[in-house]
Each structure stands twice: as structure tokens, then as C-alpha cells.
């Protein structure tokens, strides 16, 4: 370890110290009498600039700075799932045990419980030539979950010794011939992407449980999506809904520079929520990395890398991992703040010129891969990252840089949020580059007409926008019945297909079958009504209300009653079709339609009154 130097300057989160010889870039250092954790980010002669992960108030010029000889690493091994870490991998529960309710600087605690023993079963025998990533055994982390133990990515050799038994994460469980010890846990520098054997093309869809995404803007496992939106548009609700309901083995949730109360929410809820895939609490598949907006800004920058490294570890074990990053803008702002204190030449809006580059590298760490080592394992990281554009304006650098590297955009619109149309996804701006492969999968697994239905409904929504503009000029009453029908169908689609309340226990997660059924029933309703118009029935005489009500009820019904409501909707649709067919027979030809439609209009008022009389006794 190199010798200690002294603080010569403290400015914001940065400390300058000298003389520091033989230190490396990104080496960690203990700063000041309190031993605050910092990282060397610039070296000039014997002067080192250190970004400090803790509150620098009270740090004094002249206090010592001790380099540690090691970069920022995270300990990876059994016990990681379910943990809640700060941006530099300290379990917050332990920090609280040491410091109390309020975080104090200078606390050192291990990421993994050093005392807990894990039952280890070898899977290889001595004499075997081990390569990086090979599975040497498994640990039963809890009933039914076996966690593979790997040869770390930077180690290889012939196995000399290995034994079963109960071990702590630091115990030696195996030994190579060259004397290298293997443990249940290993350490990995967070800023270095973990290597994989090779990358694979996009896989199956990443099922989110949110209709608007699964149906309209699906992404693949291993894909990445950016979710920009002004404040209050629903980014966090989306990230949390996906963390709860999305089909993933492991979820790494990075709360980067956001609210403490949101984290309290997660901590309060997740342990009580069951993962239907495993029957265990969803906290059991989750790692939380929490660096709220009031925690030090440098640790915010590190937290995203920490999250990615944890995700790569589980990917290497052969899991499908989803990373929720909320929000990458706060990460970028941390870069900007540090960059500007370093007096770097600023790029657009003050962000460092390497912003796009760093962001690209971060996104590159997602994807579908064949992991290193034997037996062959496929692992996946899907990245869902929120972006918080100032003023909700997507032309800003972080949104734009994200769009260059991610495969899909879920754009959130404040106007929709103000109307309480949630998720407030703007279906015109949003897109997915994974449409082809995902819809093919849905066509095969759910229904053959999934891709067509998707395209048709998107078009219908598009047409609605145009019609609404016209209606805004001439008034909806001046529109033709067909157009008014389209408006009302689009409204229904927005309400029951796109619309999904995260707080409705029956609808917070929508299985793909339900998603499809709702979309297809809504479209059938439109078709049936259209046939009615063609047969000459006026729009206001078409009795669409029962079907519409049944659809809403289907959407809101608990799983047990859903089928009954779907059937009710089908019956109501059949009746509507009959109505159309009967009228078609009576009038003989659809040519008479337009005249009668006009008549229908005139009688609308009476019709309305009739129905009002029915509902209010």
C-alpha cells in the first residue's frame, strides 16, 4: 500500500491531496481523520483528486489521505439476494445498526454477512482443469433455490482440493494446484464489465405485465428501454410495477438520486408480495441499490455501476435479470457535477463531453449472453432506465444520448398524466425496435393475429388523433357516425387496453392472455358496431353500453371472476352483431345506411333520455 498524503483542498464532493505516489486511477482511499471513503479520479504529478462518497462537511485541510491499493469492488456470493445496499455496496441495515437512524460518514461494513454459514455441495472433483466461470458447486441459499458457485472470471487452474460442508463466504471451499483459494464469494470491481463467452441475439419477449408495453411496445429479454418523462408522469410507478410483476429471476433496482419515501414504500411492500413464479416473497429475488437524492452525489455516480455488476453476477449464474434504474438523469447529473468541479471542458448543457460514451458503455452491459465456463449457461440482463428530462423536454442530452443506445422508447406525457390516463405512455412517440421478434413469439404462443391486431389498434389510435383535431375545429357533433364511432372505440381502447392502474390489485399485472383478450374484445366491439352502422343503424341506437361495461368489469375483475365477465362481453357483442344483422336484413342493402344514420342522429336525444330513465329509478 502506498503512503498517506494530506488534504490540500476540499471543494464539494472533491478532495485534493498530496503527496500521493504510486496510486492508481480509481483506487480507493480513506480520507480525513474520519476515514471517509473516496476514489481517485485524477492524478497530476503527486497531486490526486479524489471523489468522496460521503459528506465532506467538516473535512479539514491537512488531514491524512490513505490509499487502499484496491478499486471499488463488490463482494458477490450467497446472501446477496434480498439485500439493500447503498451506492458503495454497504448494507443500509448494518449502517443503521452502526450509526443510528441518520447516516454518518466513515462507516465500514461488509456487503455479505461474514458469519452466516451456507451448505456447499461440490460439483467437480480434484484434478479437473477449471476455467473462468466454471461451476464448482452449489449452495442451497434457501429451500428450492440453488446458487451456483463459480470460478471467478479472472482465475483458472487445476483443482487440487474441494470439500462439502457449511461455510462462510470467506472460508476456502476449494484450492487450485497453484495454491489459489476459492471461496463462496468473490470480489469484482464495479467499473469493469464482467466478461461473458459470447453475446446472443435478442431472445423472447420480456413480459412486463403492463398491457401498453406487452401489447404495443414490447421489449426482449436482454433488450433495453429508456423511459423519459417529466416529473409525476409515472416513471417510478412503472419501474416499481415491473420490479413486482415482470417475468425475471432476479431484479436489481437502482434508486439513483430519487426519493427516500419511495424506497420506504418498496421496503415496506416487497417483503409482503408473493412472486407467483416461486411462491416466495419478491424481496427474495430483489437486490436494492439505494442512493437517495440527499445522499452524497459521488456515491450516486457509483451506484449505477454497482447495480450493473450485481446484475452481471446473476447473469453469469444463468439467471434472467432485470435492472431498473431510476433515474439515469441523476447519474448523469452526478457526472456533470464532478466534471465541473474538475474544471473539465463542458459539452452540451454543461454535461461532460464523454456523457454519451459512458452511457453507451453502461447500456452495453445489458444483453443476452452465454456465460463463461461450464456447464453452458445462458444469462440475460434487461435494462429499463428512467430518464428525467428538465421541463419534460426530450431534446436534452441525457434523453438523446439514451435514445442512441437503447432499443425501445416508452415516452411519458405530462398531458396524459394530468388527465390521470395511466400509464401515461404517449403511443405516438413511443417505439420499439424489437417489434418483429416479440410479436412473432406472441403470435405463436398467444394468438396468431396478435401482430395484426397490434398494428390495427395502433393505426386506430393514430386515426383518433387526427379526428380529434378535426373535431376540435368543427365540433364532434358535426362528424359522421363512422368517425364518432371510431372516437368512441379509441376511447375505449385507451381506457381498458392502455389504461391500467398500478393500485388496482386485480389489474396491477395483466397476464398476456388477458391483455390479448381485452384488446381483441375491444376491437370486436368496434367491428360489430361498424357492421351496425353499415346496416343502417344510427350510432346512438347501437347498444354498445352492455359490452363496454362488461369489458371494464372484465378488466377490473379478480382472476376468479374474469372469465365470466369476458363471456358476458362476448354475449353482449353477439347481441350487437345480431342487432346489426337484423337491421341489415330489414334494409336489404347497406347503401341505405347514410340516410338512416342521419335519422338516428335526430333521435339521439330521446334515446338518451330513455336510457337515463332506465338507470335512475
Amino acid at each position, binding site marked *: 500500500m502506498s503512503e498517506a498524503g494530506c488534504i*490540500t*483542498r*476540499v*471543494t*464539494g464532493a472533491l478532495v485534493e491531496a498530496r503527496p500521493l505516489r504510486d496510486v492508481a486511477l480509481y483506487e480507493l482511499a480513506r480520507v480525513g481523520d474520519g476515514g471517509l471513503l473516496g476514489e481517485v479520479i485524477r492524478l497530476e504529478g503527486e497531486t490526486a483528486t479524489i471523489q468522496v462518497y460521503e*459528506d*465532506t*462537511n467538516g473535512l*479539514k*485541510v*491537512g488531514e491524512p489521505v490513505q490509499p487502499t491499493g484496491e478499486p471499488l469492488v463488490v463482494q458477490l456470493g450467497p446472501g446477496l439476494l434480498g439485500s*439493500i445496499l447503498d451506492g458503495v455496496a454497504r448494507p443500509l*441495515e448494518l449502517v*443503521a445498526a452502526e450509526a443510528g*437512524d*441518520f*447516516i454518518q460518514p466513515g462507516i465500514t461494513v461488509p456487503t455479505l454477512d461474514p458469519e452466516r454459514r451456507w451448505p456447499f455441495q461440490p460439483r467437480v472433483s480434484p484434478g479437473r482443469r477449471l476455467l473462468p466461470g466454471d461451476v464448482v458447486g452449489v449452495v442451497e441459499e434457501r429451500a428450492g433455490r440453488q446458487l451456483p458457485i463459480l470460478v471467478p472470471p479472472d482465475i483458472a487452474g487445476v483443482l487440487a482440493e474441494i470439500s462439502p460442508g457449511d461455510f462462510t463466504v470467506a472460508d476456502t471451499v476449494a484450492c487450485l494446484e497453484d495454491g489459489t483459494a476459492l471461496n463462496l464469494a468473490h470480489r469484482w470491481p464495479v467499473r469493469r464489465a464482467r466478461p461473458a463467452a459470447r453475446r446472443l441475439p435478442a431472445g423472447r419477449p420480456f413480459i412486463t405485465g403492463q398491457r401498453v408495453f406487452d401489447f404495443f411496445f414490447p421489449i426482449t429479454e436482454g433488450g433495453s428501454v429508456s423511459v423519459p418523462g*417529466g*416529473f*409525476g408522469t409515472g416513471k417510478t410507478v412503472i419501474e416499481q410495477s415491473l420490479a413486482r410483476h415482470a417475468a425475471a429471476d432476479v431484479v436489481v433496482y437502482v*434508486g439513483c*438520486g430519487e*426519493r*427516500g*419515501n419511495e*424506497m*420506504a*414504500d418498496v*421496503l415496506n411492500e416487497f417483503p409482503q408480495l408473493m412472486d407467483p413464479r416461486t411462491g416466495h416473497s419478491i424481496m427474495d429475488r430483489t437486490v436494492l441499490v*439505494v442512493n*437517495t*437524492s*440527499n445522499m452524497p*452525489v459521488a456515491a450516486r455516480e457509483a451506484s449505477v455501476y454497482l447495480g450493473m455488476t450485481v446484475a452481471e453476477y446473476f447473469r453469469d449464474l444463468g439467471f434472467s435479470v432485470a435492472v431498473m434504474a431510476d433515474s439515469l438523469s*441523476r447519474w448523469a*447529473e452526478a457526472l456533470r*457535477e464532478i466534471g*465541473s468541479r474538475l474544471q473539465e471542458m463542458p459539452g452540451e*448543457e*454543461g454535461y461532460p463531453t464523454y456523457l454519451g460514451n459512458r452511457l453507451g458503455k453502461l447500456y452495453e452491459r445489458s444483453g443476452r449472453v452465454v456465460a463463461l465456463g461450464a456447464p453452458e449457461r445462458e444469462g440475460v440482463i434487461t435494462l429499463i432506465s428512467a430518464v428525467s428530462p*428538465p*421541463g419534460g*423536454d426530450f431534446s436534452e442530452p441525457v434523453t438523446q444520448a439514451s435514445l442512441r443506445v437503447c432499443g425501445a422508447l416508452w415516452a411519458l406525457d405530462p398531458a396524459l*398524466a394530468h*388527465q*390521470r390516463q395511466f400509464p401515461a405512455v404517449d403511443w405516438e412517440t413511443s417505439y420499439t425496435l424489437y417489434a418483429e421478434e416479440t410479436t412473432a413469439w406472441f403470435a405463436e404462443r398467444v394468438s396468431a393475429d396478435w401482430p395484426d391486431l397490434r398494428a390495427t389498434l395502433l393505426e386506430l389510435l393514430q386515426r383518433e388523433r387526427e379526428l380529434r383535431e378535426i373535431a*376540435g*375545429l368543427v*365540433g*364532434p*357533433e*358535426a362528424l359522421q357516425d363512422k368517425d*364518432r364511432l371510431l372516437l368512441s372505440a379509441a376511447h375505449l381502447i385507451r381506457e381498458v387496453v392502455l389504461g391500467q392502474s398500478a393500485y388496482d390489485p386485480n389489474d396491477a399485472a395483466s397476464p398476456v392472455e388477458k391483455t390479448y383478450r381485452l384488446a381483441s374484445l375491444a376491437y370486436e366491439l368496434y367491428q360489430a358496431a361498424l357492421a351496425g352502422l353499415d346496416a343502417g343503424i344510427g350510432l346512438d341506437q347501437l347498444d354498445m353500453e352492455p359490452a363496454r*361495461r362488461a369489458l371494464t368489469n372484465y378488466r*377490473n375483475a379478480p382472476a376468479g371472476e374474469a372469465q365470466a365477465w369476458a363471456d358476458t362481453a362476448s354475449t353482449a357483442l353477439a347481441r350487437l352483431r345480431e342487432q346489426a344483422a337484423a337491421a341489415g336484413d330489414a334494409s336489404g342493402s347497406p347503401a341505405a345506411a347514410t340516410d338512416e344514420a342521419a335519422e338516428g342522429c335526430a333521435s*339521439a336525444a330521446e334515446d338518451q333520455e330513455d*336510457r*337515463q330513465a332506465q*338507470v*335512475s329509478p
Partner: protein
Amino acid sequence: MTDFSRIYHGARSAGGPLIFLEKTPQVAMGEWVTITAPDQPPRRGQVIDAGREITVIQILEETLGLPPAAAEITLTGQTATAVVGRELLGRTFNGVGQPIDDLPAPVGEARVPIWGAPLNPVRRGRPGEFIETGVSAIDGMNTLVRGQKLPVFSGPGLPGLELAGQIVENARAPRGEPFAVIFCAIGITAHETYTFLNRFERSGAMERSVLYLNEARDPTIERLLAPRVALSEAEYLAFKCGIHVLVVVADMTHYCEALREIATAREEIPGRRGYPGYMYTDLAGLYERAGTVLGREGSVTQIPIVTMPDDDITHPIPDLTGYITEGQLVLSRELHRRSIFPPLDVLPSLSRLMNSGIGRGKTVPEHREWANQLYAVYTQGREARLMATIVGEAGLGEADQRALGFAERFEREFVGQGSWRRSIGDTVELGWQLLETLPRDDLLRVSDPTWEARRAATA
């Protein structure tokens, strides 16, 4: 206590609110500084850049007339602290916590650093206790809960402070738990302070309050400290004494301007509209001090007032605030012009913690559905109103016409309640009555069971 203070004769230079000191081998970040000069009033400052060669100090008072070379600068060896305790209740202080009510300085129960340490997220309680403000547009549509930070987005000349006053006047603790109000004035006029206090005095809760006043005429840079001093007292009362504390800070816009002044003086690279790039982090350091703590009784609830320059909600001050707080109450100039008080526009307003504070056992079981329905029809009515300006009311469909009528009544009767207090029960009843002017088919957000229950209850 050991005296760690060191005295320097003469600063190298001064510029704006900053002075630069040379050769400072022991200076600490955030260190508290006093500055004197012949024939000059004493000044106070704080180290914002600590260096062996050059140290930058921000001075709280105006620097006009300060001769740097002749100044005597004392580094006190302390960082900024505040005296806190129950003894402060009923008292009035300036922005750094010195009494301005002609009473002696309080001894207090503790002296704490004003840069409150961040609350460990795993120790945070989950806010979920309904605060009845007596304002329908808040209680019904944007419910406030204990431990929340819910700003009022006001505009120049809009009654943001009156609304805050009304909330504070009414927001008593329901079960008579200990309750206190902290008011922190930042850069507002004496008249504005009076507007607020006038309302507040009526509630007879002056002895349950602490006032920190930095008014327009007071030192600018002191504005950066005032909310921190106030929040230190709030945290102490809440988490050490088990009191439910409501903190009203007015006006955050002046705070941000002081922040910009320092950034400009330091020649930092400016962010949007000249505000520093770290303003988000800085504001978060204040707003995040709202909350509750597991296993402790009290709570800190914040109602900051933000004046949106030019009524622009995308201006960095409201924008960054909205990104940190748990919602916002947005005032509308249009409603204000129509003499609707409080002129709350419920559409852009939002309380993100509403769901945890409403429902069975808290407000009414159907609260969520009821509010969703009000939102839905009101939104439709607002759209219809917009359309009617072009095509005339007659060009609207019937449902749109009904929604338009609803929107008018909703604004006049539900939102525009005047200064009177309305209980949550009355708020819900009024909402239902307005909804019931519409046919059932217009109310699809209300489920059948809820509808039936309402029928049964009113039959």
C-alpha cells in the same frame, strides 16, 4: 470547549458575496467564519471551498463597503450549528437562528449541525396518516399525509401564502397529538409575512410555532441557511420530542436565487437559466428532510411555496422541485381571476402519497374511485370548454355538454370553497352530489358495488 479559532488579518480579495483567503493550512469545509473591519458591522460567513493556498468564504451579509485587506477574519473551528428545543416554541428568530423578538437567546436542549445528516432509507417510516386540511381540492383530490413534502406552485400575485395559511390554520392533529408549526420566511416582504401570520394567528397556535424570518430586506446569502436552521429545529421537535411538525417555507424561489448568486460569483459553469447544475442535489438536501422515522413518534411535513417565474411550470425552480417533492399543488391564474379561492387547478396538481392516506379507516372506503371519477369528468369538462370556445357549446356532444356544466360547478362549489373549513365528510358528500347530477353511464370509473353502496346510503 477548546477554542480552535484562528484569526487572519486581511483577505486576498473579495468579489460579490465571496472573500478569498490565502494560506489557510487548517481550514475545514463548511467552517463558520466571522469577519470584522474598522467602522463596519460584524459579518458572518461560511467556508465553501477549503484550500491550503486559497479558501473561499461566502458572506451572509452584504459585502458593500468591506475592505478585504483591512478585514479581520476568524475561522471559528466550528461548522454552522443551531440551537434547538421545545423552548423555541412561540419565539421568532432571524435566518441564522438569532432571536429578533427582544427576548434573550434560548439555551435550548441541544446544538446541532444545520446540515442535517441524511435519514437512512431503511429507517424511514412509510407516511400514511391523513392530514385534514379542510380544503376540498386537497383533502379530496390531492390528499396530504404526515411526513410528505407537498409544495404549493404559486405565481406572482397568486395567493400561495394564503393557502398555506389556511392549511396550517386547519391542519390540527386529529387525535390531539402534540403539534407544531414552523414558518420560515425567505426573502418575502413583511407584508407577505403578515398575510401568512394573520391567518395563522386565528388558529390560536402561535405558542405552538417557531418563526424564522429572513425577509426581503435581510441579508441575501443568509437565505441559504434559514431553511436549514428551521429544518434542524423541525427534526428535533419531531424525532426527539415526538411532535408532528408542519414546516412552511416561503419562498423557495428566493432561496434558489441566492444559490445562483453564489454560483455566479464563483464563476461556475451555469446550468439551465443560469442556475447551478447542482441545484437538484441542493434542493433535495432540504426537501428530503421531510418524513417519519421507524419507531419514533413525530413527523416532519413540508409545505414549501414556490413562485413560478412567469407562471412557467417548466422553469428550473418548480421543475426541480417537482422532481423531488411528493407531488405539487398548482395554483391557476385563470381561477384566481374568476375569484375562485383557493384557485387550485386539480389537474396538474398531484399528491403522490395520497393512496397511502385514504380509504377505509382513514377517509372513506370509496375515496379512490370517487376521486378518479371526479378527475375523469372534470378533465372531460375542461376539454369540452376548450372545444366550445371554437365550435360553440351547441357543437358539443351531449355528454360533453354535461361534463362542461359539471366542470363549472366543480370549480365554483367544490374547489372554490372560500376560506371556510370543510370536513372530509362534507367534501366527499359534495363531490357525490355533483357527480349525481350526471347519468350513471357518464360515471364508468365508479364500480357497480360502490354505486350500489352509495344508493343504499342515500336512500
